[in-house]
């Protein structure tokens, strides 16, 4: 059983998600929060050691989901964060990814698919749409860092380019003669590099000001 926490301000949706997760046999709902502050309080009390997946909304009253990520990811790097978005809210999702999310899911995703996505995330797969891929490409084009951890490998670039054109994981795997698992690994690594860059940038900005 994988332990899960949910942060969603809308009570109805929170209940729906709770019911959905409770109904599945692989997930164990450990905590639900209605605000980022509530979640911060929870983790500050050193609770939820076994939480592996954190499902969070982005737009919240008070602190945003992105702010929470920025705070919680360094504290709990073992947690996989999944962002909930209304729909192709690419800009906000992208910010969340930079802050530490490994995946995102649209709120109107059918129930079975939502559970499936959580499974994928647990296995190490991260979803990336074409729109997000295009933003990632742009982000990596802006600056070249000395740190190889902050720059994309040729393979990663290739994966991104196909994603940006709207290709699916399976199609990309076929095109590059690799397995779909390898495509997922590449995407996970791209997300991590994106986060490295985001931290480097934050440090640089802090140093300048």
């Amino acid at each position, binding site marked *: 059983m994988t332990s899960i926490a949910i942060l969603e301000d*809308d009570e*109805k*949706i929170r*209940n*729906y998600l709770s*019911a*959905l997760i409770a*109904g599945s046999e692989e997930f164990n709902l450990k905590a639900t929060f209605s605000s980022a502050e509530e979640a911060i309080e929870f983790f500050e009390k050193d609770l939820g050691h076994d939480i592996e997946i954190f499902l969070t909304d982005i*737009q919240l009253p008070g602190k945003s989901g992105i702010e929470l990520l920025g705070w919680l990811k360094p504290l709990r790097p073992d947690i996989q964060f999944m962002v909930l978005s*209304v*729909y*192709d*809210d690419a800009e906000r999702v992208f910010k969340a990814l930079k802050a530490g999310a490994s995946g995102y899911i649209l*709120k*109107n995703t*059918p*129930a079975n698919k939502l559970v499936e996505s959580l499974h994928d995330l647990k296995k190490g797969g991260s979803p990336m*749409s*074409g*729109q997000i891929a*295009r933003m990632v490409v742009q982000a990596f084009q802006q600056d070249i860092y000395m740190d190889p951890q902050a720059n994309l490998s040729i393979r990663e670039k290739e994966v991104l380019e196909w994603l*940006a*054109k*709207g*290709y*699916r994981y399976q199609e990309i795997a076929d095109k590059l003669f690799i397995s779909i698992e390898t495509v997922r690994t590449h995407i996970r690594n791209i997300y991590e590099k994106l986060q490295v860059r985001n931290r480097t940038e934050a440090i640089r900005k802090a140093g300048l000001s």
Partner: protein
Amino acid sequence: MHFENKNIFPTLVFNNYTSKDGLPDDEFNSGAFHKGKSGTFYFGTIKGLVWFKPDKIQPDSSIAKPIITELLVNDQRWDSSTAPAYLQTLRLSPSQNNLFVQFRSIEMLNAPLVQYAYKLEGWDENWIYSKIINQARYNNLLPGSYTLKIKAANGSGIWSEPTTIHIYIKPPFRKTWWFYTLVGVSILALVFFVNKWLLQQKLKDQLRELEKQKAIEKERNRISKDMHDEMGSDLTRISLMSELILTQQKAEEEIKKDVGNISSTARKLVETMSEIVWALNPKNDTLENLLAYVREQTLNYFEPFGNIRYKICFPDSVPDIKLTNEQRRNLYLVIKEAMNNALKHSAATEIHLQMNFTNNKICFSITDNGCSFDVQKIKIASNGLINMKKRMEEIGASFALHTKPGQTQIDICLLVS
């Protein structure tokens, strides 16, 4: 006395010799003359005999240059600190073009026999032999550079060196080189400024257009944001809540059916709105983005129909072409509709979506291997086809339907600049 043959008409010249020239006396006895066989003349004066051979007598060989005694410009005495006699150069304005010059030889001896000639180089072609008239007049001289030369001849017909005076009449302002330069520069400047002004107007227009576009973009952003934030989340709630009811076992079947309808309608609405938001967002205004979106959306769409082979053939790279939101939305919707037709009405097992870009034309073609339908019937009946046509007309794109047994093909082409 002798003849001078310097001119066309010979001139009779008398040379007078007196006691100053070496004669014993100026008074001769009448009748006391003789011409010898050798041509020698013999004359008797009251103080002795004089004889000479005429061809041995050289006429007076020197005469001084004449001097200018009076200089009138436009009938006014030329006002200068230098006396006219010493004037070497005369600079005149374009209007000072009437000249009167009086000159005189300083030859005292036989002064009445002195003759004059003058020439205004640059004006006269030949010397003017004015004989005893010692003045010259020139009227309405044109601007330019002249040299007035005056010479005098003594009684022996010997001409002096000419006295020269340079006369320079300035060209009027409008004829000077710098006037031409000024006019040229002025014309160039005018052309430059007019050009600049026009360019500025054009820039202003462009700026205005740009501002307008920016305002439109801003508005599009606002609308898409509002739709996204306000309506999107509410619709999502409807869809999720109805789904929640569906999962509750205790609900009645009849209610479940209705709620199921609510759920699917809300889901469809969210999808439609997602498409509108995509079309509205100015960030998506490129052909590349359209292709990626079409690929993603149609793949999602076909996923549930596992038994249909669906092939997308887009070029790996396309030029950076801007498309308006209207163009993108209409192209996308027509492609979607065409695919929907193929999927639902033709019982096709294979659907191909292709895109080509040649000669500035974006061409999509959707081909399926389903049973083709009667075009005439379809034209009247199918709202879908009429809609597709209308949508393509709206953005100035062409729409063509080709059917033959076992194949239906829809071609849409949009010419872009």
